[in-house]
Protein backbone atom coordinates (compact mmCIF):
# COMPACT_ATOMS: atom_id res chain seq x y z
CA UNK A 1 0.00 0.00 0.00
CA UNK A 2 1.22 3.47 -0.86
CA UNK A 3 2.53 5.23 2.27
CA UNK A 4 0.41 8.36 1.91
CA UNK A 5 -2.79 6.41 1.32
CA UNK A 6 -1.98 4.14 4.26
CA UNK A 7 -1.55 7.17 6.51
CA UNK A 8 -4.88 8.66 5.41
CA UNK A 9 -6.62 5.31 5.96
CA UNK A 10 -4.98 5.09 9.40
CA UNK A 11 -6.27 8.55 10.33
CA UNK A 12 -9.71 7.58 9.07
CA UNK A 13 -9.77 4.27 10.97
CA UNK A 14 -8.47 5.90 14.17
CA UNK A 15 -11.11 8.60 13.81
CA UNK A 16 -13.88 6.05 13.34
CA UNK A 17 -13.01 3.88 16.36
CA UNK A 18 -12.59 7.02 18.49
CA UNK A 19 -15.96 8.37 17.36
CA UNK A 20 -17.63 5.03 18.09
CA UNK A 21 -16.24 5.01 21.65
CA UNK A 22 -17.62 8.53 22.20
CA UNK A 23 -21.01 8.10 20.56
CA UNK A 24 -21.96 4.54 21.53
CA UNK A 25 -23.50 5.27 24.95
CA UNK A 26 -24.01 9.04 24.72
CA UNK A 27 -27.75 8.49 24.33
CA UNK A 28 -29.61 5.57 25.83
CA UNK A 29 -33.32 4.76 26.06
CA UNK A 30 -35.05 6.30 29.11
CA UNK A 31 -36.07 2.85 30.39
CA UNK A 32 -32.37 2.09 30.74
CA UNK A 33 -31.85 4.47 33.65
CA UNK A 34 -32.80 2.73 36.88
CA UNK A 35 -32.00 4.46 40.17
CA UNK A 36 -29.12 2.07 40.75
CA UNK A 37 -27.67 2.69 37.33
CA UNK A 38 -27.95 6.44 37.83
CA UNK A 39 -26.10 6.09 41.12
CA UNK A 40 -23.36 4.26 39.26
CA UNK A 41 -23.22 6.77 36.41
CA UNK A 42 -23.06 9.63 38.88
CA UNK A 43 -19.84 8.17 40.33
CA UNK A 44 -18.06 7.64 37.00
CA UNK A 45 -16.62 11.19 36.75
CA UNK A 46 -14.98 10.77 40.15
CA UNK A 47 -13.18 7.64 38.97
CA UNK A 48 -12.20 9.18 35.64
CA UNK A 49 -10.89 12.40 37.16
CA UNK A 50 -9.05 10.47 39.87
CA UNK A 51 -7.32 8.43 37.16
CA UNK A 52 -6.39 11.57 35.25
CA UNK A 53 -5.04 13.31 38.37
CA UNK A 54 -3.36 10.83 40.74
CA UNK A 55 -1.01 9.01 38.34
CA UNK A 56 0.21 12.37 36.99
CA UNK A 57 1.31 13.19 40.55
CA UNK A 58 2.53 9.84 41.85
CA UNK A 59 3.62 7.67 38.92
CA UNK A 60 6.31 8.33 36.37
CA UNK A 61 7.86 5.86 33.94
CA UNK A 62 6.26 2.88 35.69
CA UNK A 63 7.56 3.80 39.15
CA UNK A 64 6.21 5.49 42.25
CA UNK A 65 7.40 9.03 42.56
CA UNK A 66 6.34 12.30 44.07
CA UNK A 67 6.87 15.70 42.56
CA UNK A 68 6.79 17.99 45.63
CA UNK A 69 6.07 21.10 43.57
CA UNK A 70 3.09 19.53 41.78
CA UNK A 71 1.83 18.04 45.04
CA UNK A 72 2.02 21.41 46.80
CA UNK A 73 0.35 23.17 43.88
CA UNK A 74 -2.43 20.56 43.95
CA UNK A 75 -3.06 21.29 47.62
CA UNK A 76 -3.17 25.02 46.81
CA UNK A 77 -5.63 24.29 43.99
CA UNK A 78 -7.96 22.37 46.33
CA UNK A 79 -7.76 25.07 49.02
CA UNK A 80 -8.51 27.85 46.55
CA UNK A 81 -11.46 25.85 45.21
CA UNK A 82 -12.82 25.20 48.72
CA UNK A 83 -12.52 28.89 49.59
CA UNK A 84 -13.72 30.58 46.39
CA UNK A 85 -15.41 27.84 44.32
CA UNK A 86 -13.94 29.39 41.21
CA UNK A 87 -12.40 27.00 38.65
CA UNK A 88 -10.53 29.77 36.90
CA UNK A 89 -8.87 30.86 40.17
CA UNK A 90 -8.07 27.32 41.31
CA UNK A 91 -6.58 26.45 37.94
CA UNK A 92 -4.81 29.78 37.50
CA UNK A 93 -3.22 30.20 40.92
CA UNK A 94 -1.92 26.63 41.17
CA UNK A 95 -0.53 26.65 37.62
CA UNK A 96 1.02 30.08 38.18
CA UNK A 97 2.72 28.75 41.31
CA UNK A 98 4.29 25.92 39.30
CA UNK A 99 5.37 28.21 36.44
CA UNK A 100 6.91 30.80 38.79
CA UNK A 101 8.79 28.24 40.91
CA UNK A 102 10.10 26.49 37.78
CA UNK A 103 11.14 29.81 36.25
CA UNK A 104 12.95 30.85 39.45
CA UNK A 105 14.65 27.47 39.67
CA UNK A 106 15.91 27.86 36.12
CA UNK A 107 17.59 31.20 36.89
Amino acid at each position, binding site marked *: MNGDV*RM*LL*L*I*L*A*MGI*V*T*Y*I*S*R*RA*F*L*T*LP*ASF*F*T*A*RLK*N*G*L*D*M*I*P*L*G*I*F*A*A*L*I*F*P*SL*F*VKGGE*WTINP*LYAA*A*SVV*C*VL*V*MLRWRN*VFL*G*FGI*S*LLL*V*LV*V*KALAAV
Partner: protein
Amino acid sequence: MNKQNHMASWKQGIRDSVPIGMSFLVFGGIFGMMALQAGMSSGESVLMSFFVHAGSSQFAVLPMLVEGAGFWTMVMVTFFMNSRHLLMAMSLAPYYSRHNRRFADLIAFFLSDEQYAITYNRIRQAGFDKAYILSVSIFLHLFWALGTWLGSLFGQFLPDPERFGLEFSFTAMFLALTVGLLTSPMRIAVFVGCGAVACLFSLVADSGLHVLGAGLLAFAVGYMRKPAAGSRETEEKERVAG
Protein backbone atom coordinates in the same frame (compact mmCIF):
# COMPACT_ATOMS: atom_id res chain seq x y z
CA MET B 1 -33.47 30.48 24.49
CA ASN B 2 -33.33 34.06 23.27
CA LYS B 3 -30.52 35.45 21.22
CA GLN B 4 -28.91 37.36 24.06
CA ASN B 5 -28.64 34.30 26.31
CA HIS B 6 -27.31 32.39 23.35
CA MET B 7 -24.50 34.90 22.87
CA ALA B 8 -23.73 34.94 26.60
CA SER B 9 -23.41 31.13 26.56
CA TRP B 10 -21.07 31.25 23.59
CA LYS B 11 -18.88 33.85 25.25
CA GLN B 12 -18.82 31.95 28.53
CA GLY B 13 -17.85 28.82 26.62
CA ILE B 14 -14.95 30.63 25.00
CA ARG B 15 -13.82 32.10 28.34
CA ASP B 16 -13.91 28.68 29.98
CA SER B 17 -12.01 26.97 27.17
CA VAL B 18 -9.23 29.52 26.66
CA PRO B 19 -7.07 28.57 29.70
CA ILE B 20 -6.89 24.90 28.73
CA GLY B 21 -6.89 25.92 25.06
CA MET B 22 -3.53 27.59 25.68
CA SER B 23 -2.17 24.27 26.94
CA PHE B 24 -3.70 22.56 23.92
CA LEU B 25 -1.74 24.96 21.70
CA VAL B 26 1.52 23.91 23.34
CA PHE B 27 0.79 20.19 23.55
CA GLY B 28 -0.80 20.13 20.11
CA GLY B 29 2.40 21.84 18.99
CA ILE B 30 4.50 19.14 20.58
CA PHE B 31 2.41 16.52 18.80
CA GLY B 32 2.90 18.34 15.49
CA MET B 33 6.65 18.47 16.02
CA MET B 34 6.92 14.81 17.06
CA ALA B 35 4.66 13.69 14.22
CA LEU B 36 7.04 15.38 11.81
CA GLN B 37 9.92 13.43 13.33
CA ALA B 38 7.88 10.23 13.03
CA GLY B 39 7.58 10.85 9.30
CA MET B 40 4.14 12.43 9.07
CA SER B 41 3.66 15.51 6.94
CA SER B 42 2.33 18.73 8.42
CA GLY B 43 -1.01 18.18 6.69
CA GLU B 44 -1.31 14.60 7.94
CA SER B 45 -0.68 15.56 11.57
CA VAL B 46 -3.27 18.36 11.39
CA LEU B 47 -5.76 15.95 9.78
CA MET B 48 -5.14 13.49 12.59
CA SER B 49 -5.61 16.15 15.26
CA PHE B 50 -8.82 17.27 13.61
CA PHE B 51 -10.43 13.92 12.81
CA VAL B 52 -9.13 11.78 15.66
CA HIS B 53 -8.75 14.54 18.27
CA ALA B 54 -7.52 12.21 21.00
CA GLY B 55 -4.19 13.39 22.38
CA SER B 56 -3.04 10.30 24.25
CA SER B 57 -3.70 7.86 21.42
CA GLN B 58 -2.20 10.23 18.86
CA PHE B 59 1.01 10.32 20.90
CA ALA B 60 0.89 6.55 21.36
CA VAL B 61 0.73 5.90 17.63
CA LEU B 62 3.85 7.95 16.81
CA PRO B 63 6.50 5.53 18.14
CA MET B 64 4.49 2.68 16.59
CA LEU B 65 4.72 4.40 13.22
CA VAL B 66 8.48 4.68 13.60
CA GLU B 67 8.74 1.00 14.55
CA GLY B 68 6.58 0.01 11.59
CA ALA B 69 3.72 -1.44 13.66
CA GLY B 70 0.80 -3.09 11.89
CA PHE B 71 -2.15 -1.00 10.71
CA TRP B 72 -4.77 -2.76 12.83
CA THR B 73 -2.51 -2.85 15.86
CA MET B 74 -2.41 0.94 15.81
CA VAL B 75 -6.17 1.13 15.34
CA MET B 76 -6.75 -1.25 18.25
CA VAL B 77 -4.40 0.71 20.50
CA THR B 78 -6.38 3.84 19.63
CA PHE B 79 -9.63 2.12 20.52
CA PHE B 80 -8.35 0.78 23.84
CA MET B 81 -6.84 4.09 24.86
CA ASN B 82 -10.12 5.81 24.05
CA SER B 83 -12.34 3.14 25.57
CA ARG B 84 -12.65 5.39 28.65
CA HIS B 85 -14.89 7.57 26.47
CA LEU B 86 -17.46 4.75 26.47
CA LEU B 87 -17.88 5.41 30.18
CA MET B 88 -17.64 9.20 30.00
CA ALA B 89 -20.36 9.23 27.37
CA MET B 90 -22.49 6.90 29.48
CA SER B 91 -22.24 9.24 32.46
CA LEU B 92 -23.53 12.03 30.20
CA ALA B 93 -26.30 9.88 28.73
CA PRO B 94 -28.98 10.90 31.27
CA TYR B 95 -28.56 14.47 30.01
CA TYR B 96 -27.98 13.92 26.28
CA SER B 97 -30.76 11.33 25.97
CA ARG B 98 -33.33 14.03 26.75
CA HIS B 99 -32.29 16.02 23.69
CA ASN B 100 -32.31 15.23 20.02
CA ARG B 101 -29.98 12.54 18.76
CA ARG B 102 -28.40 14.74 16.11
CA PHE B 103 -26.91 16.96 18.79
CA ALA B 104 -25.36 13.87 20.41
CA ASP B 105 -24.12 12.71 16.98
CA LEU B 106 -22.37 16.04 16.60
CA ILE B 107 -20.94 16.46 20.10
CA ALA B 108 -19.55 12.90 20.16
CA PHE B 109 -17.03 14.10 17.58
CA PHE B 110 -15.66 16.64 20.09
CA LEU B 111 -15.74 14.61 23.30
CA SER B 112 -12.26 14.77 24.85
CA ASP B 113 -11.23 14.46 28.51
CA GLU B 114 -11.04 18.23 28.83
CA GLN B 115 -14.25 18.95 26.93
CA TYR B 116 -15.93 16.37 29.17
CA ALA B 117 -14.57 17.95 32.36
CA ILE B 118 -15.61 21.48 31.45
CA THR B 119 -19.06 20.68 30.06
CA TYR B 120 -19.94 18.11 32.75
CA ASN B 121 -19.22 20.74 35.39
CA ARG B 122 -21.48 23.23 33.63
CA ILE B 123 -24.31 20.73 33.06
CA ARG B 124 -24.36 19.89 36.77
CA GLN B 125 -24.27 23.49 37.88
CA ALA B 126 -26.38 25.33 35.33
CA GLY B 127 -28.21 22.65 33.37
CA PHE B 128 -27.91 21.52 29.77
CA ASP B 129 -26.92 24.46 27.60
CA LYS B 130 -26.38 23.54 23.94
CA ALA B 131 -24.76 26.83 22.95
CA TYR B 132 -22.25 26.56 25.78
CA ILE B 133 -21.41 22.92 25.03
CA LEU B 134 -20.95 23.69 21.35
CA SER B 135 -18.76 26.68 22.09
CA VAL B 136 -16.40 24.78 24.41
CA SER B 137 -16.31 21.83 21.99
CA ILE B 138 -15.42 23.86 18.93
CA PHE B 139 -12.84 26.07 20.59
CA LEU B 140 -10.95 23.25 22.31
CA HIS B 141 -11.00 21.32 19.04
CA LEU B 142 -9.62 24.22 17.06
CA PHE B 143 -6.92 25.00 19.64
CA TRP B 144 -5.68 21.41 19.40
CA ALA B 145 -5.63 21.38 15.60
CA LEU B 146 -4.10 24.87 15.42
CA GLY B 147 -1.42 23.90 17.94
CA THR B 148 -0.58 20.82 15.85
CA TRP B 149 -0.23 22.91 12.73
CA LEU B 150 1.98 25.51 14.42
CA GLY B 151 4.08 22.77 16.00
CA SER B 152 4.66 21.09 12.66
CA LEU B 153 5.82 24.43 11.25
CA PHE B 154 7.75 25.97 14.15
CA GLY B 155 8.31 23.00 16.44
CA GLN B 156 11.92 23.83 17.16
CA PHE B 157 10.90 27.04 18.97
CA LEU B 158 8.48 25.34 21.36
CA PRO B 159 9.22 25.44 25.08
CA ASP B 160 9.92 22.13 26.78
CA PRO B 161 6.70 21.70 28.80
CA GLU B 162 8.40 19.75 31.56
CA ARG B 163 10.96 22.48 32.10
CA PHE B 164 8.24 25.09 32.53
CA GLY B 165 5.81 22.81 34.34
CA LEU B 166 3.09 23.24 31.70
CA GLU B 167 2.20 19.56 31.96
CA PHE B 168 0.71 20.45 35.36
CA SER B 169 -1.97 22.51 33.61
CA PHE B 170 -4.06 19.38 32.94
CA THR B 171 -3.77 18.15 36.52
CA ALA B 172 -4.71 21.63 37.78
CA MET B 173 -7.80 21.80 35.62
CA PHE B 174 -9.07 18.31 36.38
CA LEU B 175 -8.48 18.93 40.08
CA ALA B 176 -10.21 22.31 40.08
CA LEU B 177 -13.22 20.75 38.34
CA THR B 178 -13.31 17.76 40.68
CA VAL B 179 -13.47 19.67 43.98
CA GLY B 180 -17.08 20.66 43.32
CA LEU B 181 -18.00 16.97 42.90
CA LEU B 182 -16.61 15.98 46.32
CA THR B 183 -19.82 16.66 48.21
CA SER B 184 -19.80 13.79 50.72
CA PRO B 185 -17.25 11.62 52.60
CA MET B 186 -18.39 8.72 50.43
CA ARG B 187 -17.57 10.60 47.22
CA ILE B 188 -14.19 11.68 48.58
CA ALA B 189 -13.45 8.04 49.46
CA VAL B 190 -14.39 6.90 45.94
CA PHE B 191 -12.20 9.63 44.44
CA VAL B 192 -9.12 8.77 46.54
CA GLY B 193 -9.68 5.01 46.23
CA CYS B 194 -10.01 5.18 42.45
CA GLY B 195 -6.91 7.38 42.35
CA ALA B 196 -4.91 4.75 44.23
CA VAL B 197 -6.17 1.96 41.96
CA ALA B 198 -5.39 4.04 38.86
CA CYS B 199 -1.83 4.56 40.12
CA LEU B 200 -1.42 0.80 40.61
CA PHE B 201 -2.77 0.13 37.10
CA SER B 202 -0.52 2.71 35.50
CA LEU B 203 2.53 1.25 37.28
CA VAL B 204 1.91 -1.95 35.32
CA ALA B 205 1.04 -0.50 31.92
CA ASP B 206 0.84 3.05 30.70
CA SER B 207 -1.85 2.38 28.12
CA GLY B 208 -4.72 4.62 29.19
CA LEU B 209 -6.66 1.59 30.42
CA HIS B 210 -6.18 2.72 34.01
CA VAL B 211 -8.71 5.48 33.33
CA LEU B 212 -11.24 2.93 32.14
CA GLY B 213 -10.50 0.73 35.15
CA ALA B 214 -10.96 3.54 37.65
CA GLY B 215 -14.16 4.67 35.93
CA LEU B 216 -15.57 1.13 36.07
CA LEU B 217 -14.64 0.83 39.75
CA ALA B 218 -16.39 4.11 40.58
CA PHE B 219 -19.43 2.95 38.62
CA ALA B 220 -19.50 -0.36 40.50
CA VAL B 221 -19.33 1.38 43.88
CA GLY B 222 -22.21 3.67 42.95
CA TYR B 223 -24.21 0.78 41.51
CA MET B 224 -23.78 -1.43 44.59
CA ARG B 225 -25.02 1.24 46.97
CA LYS B 226 -28.66 1.39 47.82
CA PRO B 227 -30.46 3.97 45.67
CA ALA B 228 -30.69 7.29 47.45
CA ALA B 229 -33.60 7.38 49.87
CA GLY B 230 -36.63 9.15 48.49
CA SER B 231 -35.92 8.29 44.86
CA ARG B 232 -38.91 6.91 43.02
CA GLU B 233 -37.49 3.43 42.53
CA THR B 234 -36.76 3.04 46.24
CA GLU B 235 -40.26 4.09 47.18
CA GLU B 236 -41.73 1.68 44.66
CA LYS B 237 -39.65 -1.21 45.94
CA GLU B 238 -40.61 -0.41 49.49
CA ARG B 239 -44.26 -0.33 48.56
CA VAL B 240 -44.01 -3.71 46.81
CA ALA B 241 -42.15 -5.15 49.77
CA GLY B 242 -45.01 -3.89 51.91
